[in-house]
């Protein structure tokens, strides 16, 4: 029974595939998976938008949307209808073709990333040998669509937003890749299925997740920072800082194209949460051995939503960074820490089993953090700063 529930989507897919002639079955299988992804994640997008608006409201001692439907749960529907029936305005001077393709490229590329995420036991759409590489290839392509949107709009705010976005995404992609390399080093594989498999063991009922190792934890923190920056989320939301450059690269988008950007942003957030969960939080594996009876896909989606809550919490708390603070943080704190972490991971593998490697690796990482942070604070690059006119 537990097994059936765990595999219910796989079984359902195979049952539907069985209804078709043998020649058509592979195509039907692909279409089913694509449809499932295209149905589930926009749904989660709608839900997380609502959650974000309500959660942010609560953090600011407001109530949040509560007018449309009971407790405002139909708010995303209302927003969607509004976006659909709005006029699509394209600036007269815009580069129409590029302007048209930018949101499409973004949404396509963002959805491609889901192809390799293991969403449950046997629930990877394309179990790929180089899955992680594929994911990052798709993530890197998203930058191009951002640039296309900003440049084609012929609007200085759009262009500024695009330049900021691209600079930021390139800067934070390096730590993002490096932290993943740490996991790859520990697993010895680029395949996301194998990474989850490697974490799906238990000692005394506790899981072997990578976040519970010293360098895994450090990598997780760095990954979370880089992922927040990569998805242009607050406090790294300079590319769309409303108070500075209207809406950044999608200033000149309205109606459904705007909705596409919105969708792309949230779906990318969900997808990078999924990647983070896969790399550090054991993907679809249960947090306790005793909880293994709960279907694996529930764990995966629970972890994603937990990560989204984290994103919302960060957004509700931190003010936006300035461009130089952003760059200093990326190159002078996150990247050095990640590199040290990489070395520590190598050390971990060489030290062999036992408590010694725990102590050594934790000590090195802690010392590295203390030194980097102390130096950063002293150099006024990362620490609190004094303002000449604001104080």
């Amino acid at each position, binding site marked *: 029974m537990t097994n059936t529930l765990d595999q219910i989507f796989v079984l359902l897919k195979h049952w539907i595939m069985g209804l078709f002639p043998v020649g058509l079955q592979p195509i039907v299988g692909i279409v089913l998976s694509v449809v499932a992804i295209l149905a589930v994640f926009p749904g989660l997008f709608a839900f997380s938008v609502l959650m974000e608006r309500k959660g942010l409201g609560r*953090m600011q*001692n*407001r*109530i949040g949307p509560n007018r449309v439907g009971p407790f405002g749960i139909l708010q995303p529907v209302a927003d969607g209808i509004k976006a659909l029936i709005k006029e699509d305005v394209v600036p007269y001077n815009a580069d129409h073709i590029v302007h048209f393709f930018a949101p499409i490229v973004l949404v396509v590329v963002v959805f491609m990333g889901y192809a390799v995420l293991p969403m449950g036991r046997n629930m990877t759409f394309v179990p790929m040998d180089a899955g992680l590489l594929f994911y990052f290839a798709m993530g890197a392509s998203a930058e191009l669509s951002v640039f296309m949107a900003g440049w084609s709009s012929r609007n200085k705010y759009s262009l500024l937003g695009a330049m900021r976005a691209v600079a930021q995404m390139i800067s934070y992609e390096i730590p993002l890749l490096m932290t993943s390399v740490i996991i790859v080093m520990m697993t010895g594989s680029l395949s996301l299925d194998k990474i989850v498999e490697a974490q799906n063991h238990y000692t005394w009922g506790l899981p072997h997740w990578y976040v519970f190792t010293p360098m895994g934890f450090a990598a997780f923190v760095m990954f979370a920072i880089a992922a927040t920056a990569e998805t242009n989320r607050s406090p790294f939301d300079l590319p769309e800082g409303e108070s500075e450059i209207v809406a950044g690269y999608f200033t000149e988008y309205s109606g459904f194209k705007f909705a596409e950007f919105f969708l792309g942003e949230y779906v990318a957030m969900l997808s990078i949460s999924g990647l983070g969960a896969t790399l550090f939080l054991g993907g679809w594996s249960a947090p306790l051995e005793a909880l293994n009876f709960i279907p694996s896909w529930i764990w995966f989606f629970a972890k994603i939503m937990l990560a989204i809550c984290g994103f919302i919490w960060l957004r509700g*708390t931190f003010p936006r960074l300035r461009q130089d603070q952003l760059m200093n943080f990326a190159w002078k704190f996150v990247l050095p820490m990640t590199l040290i972490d990489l070395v520590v991971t190598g050390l971990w593998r060489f030290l062999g089993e036992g408590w010694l490697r725990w102590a050594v690796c934790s000590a090195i990482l802690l010392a590295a953090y203390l030194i980097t942070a102390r130096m950063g604070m002293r150099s006024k690059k990362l620490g*609190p700063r004094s303002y000449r006119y604001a104080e």
Partner: protein
Amino acid sequence: MLGEGLLKGLAETAKNFAGSFVSKERLITVQYPEERHPLPEASRNFPFLVYDGADWEAGLRCVACQICEKECPPKCIYIEKSKDKKPDYVGKMQIYPARFDIDISVCMSCQICVEVCPFEAIKMDTEFELATDDRFGGLLQDRKQLAKSNEYYHAIHPTEASEVDARLAEEKAKVEEKARAAAAAAAAKAAAPAAPAAPAATPSPAAPKEGEGSQPQ
């Protein structure tokens, strides 16, 4: 230490988040159409016409003197005088407004009409939900819409309304006093058949209670 402030901030928002579910004082939002703040007594936006008693048409204090119409800076008031007369609050026969329109799309809420009115007939209202989908007819209020009872006036501006009432009562008492004096004088005159011109010589404009129409302007 780097990151210390970040954790402090996160704790603060978490406290807010959890607190907003527990304590009602944290949620300061007033959910407007259902709940509303009581308006401060000094709030005012558009004028209305005060009437006494139960019947708005009979009790209207306005005597169509047209001072407000003339003083109104944006000229949003339109008054037509009546042909006949009706008794005012002291019982004197006065003309009344056959039409009294205020275009609230033009009105700038300056309150000059209230200040110039000698009859305490026009006052400032607190009603603000005046949005309408008919931007010409809907924003032009006629005298029926403008007429609000004195009790309503008391409800929205209690101190001011009681002051006005006291003033009016004083005036009425004065008038009645005078009338009584005049009646007494008339009686005295009637007793002594000489000196016929005494009632007309009283200087006050609202002197004779049963007088033949003094000029309101």
